């Protein structure tokens, strides 16, 4: 039965690639990157073994493994989404027991590139253990590493599924916000430990942290081999039990949220219809918007960012990451300004597939012949309604947390500059590289390759934004105190200019490629 699921996954993947040159290229590129990361990771994790250092192994294996698991928790939510080649909702009508369905979907999810790359990378730990403790230890380590991959995959599935369920219900969205905050907060201590340890070269403290992590499900699968090598074989069954229990718990969690999602897909009543007496135009448009085409487009976009699950997930994720990341780094004393560059660029990246969000509904705008520039600028404006106040909040919070309120205007300037430059890069990309999102109930769902496309775009755009804002950064560095008051207007002007350039380019692209864009974002029927 499990084999059927795996075969089905590959069949769908192959059919999706057939005759689609760009998708094949993307898939191959993804495989190459996956292999590269896997092999690179293998060498990193094999280093303590090659150097014959038990102490280094005791630090690297639990912390590196733990970071991997955290990455599986965090990255699908923020950047990549989960590969949903097999959409669980499609199985709703089949007479499958839940156990069969879950094990099938789980097995299929393990055949993806990320899971294989993770396995390859962590096999480096097996090599380390073999050199330190011989064949017996490495066999145990191998079991641990395999369990580790299972844990990673189960974790990402369970968390994205749970989030999509709670994001769909209106009552649950506050809950989702809080849970997200917790996830982000979880990252904090790890970063702090890593930073503090690295800065002060206080390896004893790091070793203490590593020893603790080794006893959590995050580090346990990666340290069992080491335990054998160091003569603590008694710890192995306990740790394995811990990991297996964690996997079982996650799978149970996944299956329970999945069931709700599947039922929800068949027929859902969001809220009781109540009567509204306003006039249609006043109900669509906010008071502050002009009563014309641009106003209607912006109003629709603003409403969509909140009403549509995928966009809401994007927005909430960005809010939490955007606030927590700089604050965490500001608390640890360094790097807050670097993360501001990152946050501004990531804000713009949320629009990387802006046309894919509503899919074929874009046909309405095509049929009405909306000019490209109006289309692109209204979308940027709709998103900015949320983002610009948020960036202001981030600047203020970071300013106070890092103890230099005077830098708030220039920080805000940096954020606006990177956001503007990011938009300048992303808006044309969003027209050229639009892709259809699967018609799934899971807002984190990606078709095969979609996650990679998004990830690549993200890194390219961050890099581009950072390079393009170099003049502003250089000015900030050279001018010192003058920048504190001159920074805001200069940076805002810089960001605005980049945005105007990008939106003009994107608008012309839309005018030329309207039907092609519509075809690109319409899911295959």
């Amino acid at each position, binding site marked *: 039965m499990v084999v059927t699921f795996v075969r089905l996954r590959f069949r769908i993947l192959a059919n999706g690639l057939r005759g689609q040159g760009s998708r094949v290229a993307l898939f191959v590129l993804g495989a190459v990157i996956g292999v590269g990361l896997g092999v690179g990771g293998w060498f990193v994790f094999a280093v303590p073994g090659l150097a014959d250092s038990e102490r280094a192994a005791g630090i690297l294996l639990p912390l590196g493994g733990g970071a991997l698991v955290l990455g599986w928790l965090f990255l699908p939510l923020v950047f990549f989404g989960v590969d949903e080649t097999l959409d669980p909702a499609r199985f709703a009508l089949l007479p499958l027991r839940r156990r069969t369905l879950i094990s099938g979907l789980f097995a299929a999810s393990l055949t993806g590139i990320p899971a294989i790359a993770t396995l390859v990378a962590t096999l480096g730990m097996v090599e380390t253990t073999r050199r330190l403790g011989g064949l017996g230890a490495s066999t145990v380590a191998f079991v641990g590493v395999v369990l580790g991959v299972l844990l990673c995959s189960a974790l990402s599935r369970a968390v994205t599924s749970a989030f999509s369920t709670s994001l769909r219900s209106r009552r649950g969205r506050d809950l989702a916000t809080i849970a997200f905050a917790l996830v982000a907060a979880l990252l904090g201590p790890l970063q702090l430990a890593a930073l503090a340890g690295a800065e002060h070269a206080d390896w004893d403290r790091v070793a203490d942290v590593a020893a603790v992590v080794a006893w959590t499900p995050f580090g346990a699968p990666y340290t069992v081999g080491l335990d054998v090598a160091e003569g603590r074989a008694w710890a192995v069954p306990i740790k394995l039990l811990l990991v297996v229990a964690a996997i079982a718990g996650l799978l149970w969690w996944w299956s329970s949220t999945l069931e709700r999602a599947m039922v929800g897909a068949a027929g859902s009543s969001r809220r009781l219809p109540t009567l*509204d007496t306003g006039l*249609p135009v006043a109900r669509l448009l906010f008071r502050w918007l002009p009563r014309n085409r641009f106003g209607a487009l912006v109003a629709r976009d603003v409403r969509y960012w909140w009403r549509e699950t995928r966009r809401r997930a994007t927005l909430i994720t960005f809010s939490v990451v955007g606030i927590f990341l700089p604050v965490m780094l500001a608390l640890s004393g360094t790097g807050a300004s670097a993360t501001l560059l990152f946050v501004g660029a990531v804000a713009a990246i949320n629009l990387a597939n802006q046309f894919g969000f509503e899919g074929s509904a874009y046909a309405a705008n095509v049929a009405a012949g*909306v000019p490209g520039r109006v289309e692109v600028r209204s979308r940027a404006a709709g998103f900015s309604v949320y983002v610009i106040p948020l960036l202001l909040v981030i600047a203020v919070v970071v300013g106070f947390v890092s103890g230099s309120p005077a830098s708030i205007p220039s920080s805000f300037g940096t954020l606006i500059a990177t956001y503007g430059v990011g938009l300048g890069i992303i808006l044309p990309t969003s027209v050229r590289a639009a892709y259809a999102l699967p018609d799934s109930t899971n807002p984190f769902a990606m078709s095969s390759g979609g996650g990679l496309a998004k990830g690549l775009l993200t890194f390219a755009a961050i890099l581009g934004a950072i390079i393009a804002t170099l003049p502003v950064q250089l000015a900030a560095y050279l001018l010192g105190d003058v920048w504190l008051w001159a920074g805001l207007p200069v940076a805002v002007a810089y960001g605005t200019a980049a945005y105007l350039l990008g939106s003009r380019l994107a608008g012309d692209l839309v005018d030329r490629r309207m039907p092609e864009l*519509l075809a690109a974002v319409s899911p295959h029927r």
Partner: protein
Amino acid sequence: MTVPVQRSADDGPAMSLQGLVKQFDTKLAVAGVDLDVPASSFYGLLGPNGAGKTTTLSMAVGLLRPDAGRALLLGYDVWADPATAKGLIGVLPDGVRLFDRLTGAELLAYHGLLRGMDAAVVDQRAQELLDVLELGAGNRTLIVDYSAGMKKKIGLACALLHGPRLLILDEPFEAVDPVSAALIRDILQRYVAGGGTVVFSSHVMEVVERLCSHVAIMSAGAIRVQGTISAVRGKRSLEDVFVEVVGGRTVTGSELAWL
């Protein structure tokens, strides 16, 4: 820009498709369609599933770029001068989503303003349409929660809102219950009586037979027969003509014995 410049009916056909071709990967979906729709006609485009009706209409309204051919709407080439041509027509596409996270009233307001209409006119017409189509002017249900029939009705309302002289509707009667279908029929008949032109696709013979002045039968990406309904039908029923033109298969009784 609320009322586009109109041309008189004798200027020529309301819609004229000339040699439209569309190839998808390996499949030739539309293999050269020529079709003239006279002004003030009620034109039915018939065809089995997969005949290329949706592809043809998508190319006619500017949603899908043809590989070859031209599409003239009220005399304007939709691919050479999209802004003008698109402003003159109302479209109900099939198989694409609406902006379904809006309520019915919000969607109508959106379409109205998108077409450059005055806000007061949008309000007045939108409420009237919601009322006549029994969608409830004060209804706050999001369109995503509408029934299939209600979705068709709100889509039709969006196409009618700006008072176009040519309506191009893809499967307007699909998934619509008999009561709503009768309502839509009445609205469309009044629209044609008032000088408008309707082109719609369907595979339901009864509707076409009852409504249309003209009909074209499409199969495998080409128009097989076209003309006034009496000329196409002759003395037979439209269904007989359709099956003969399309070449359907009949069940003899030996297959599916297990049923």
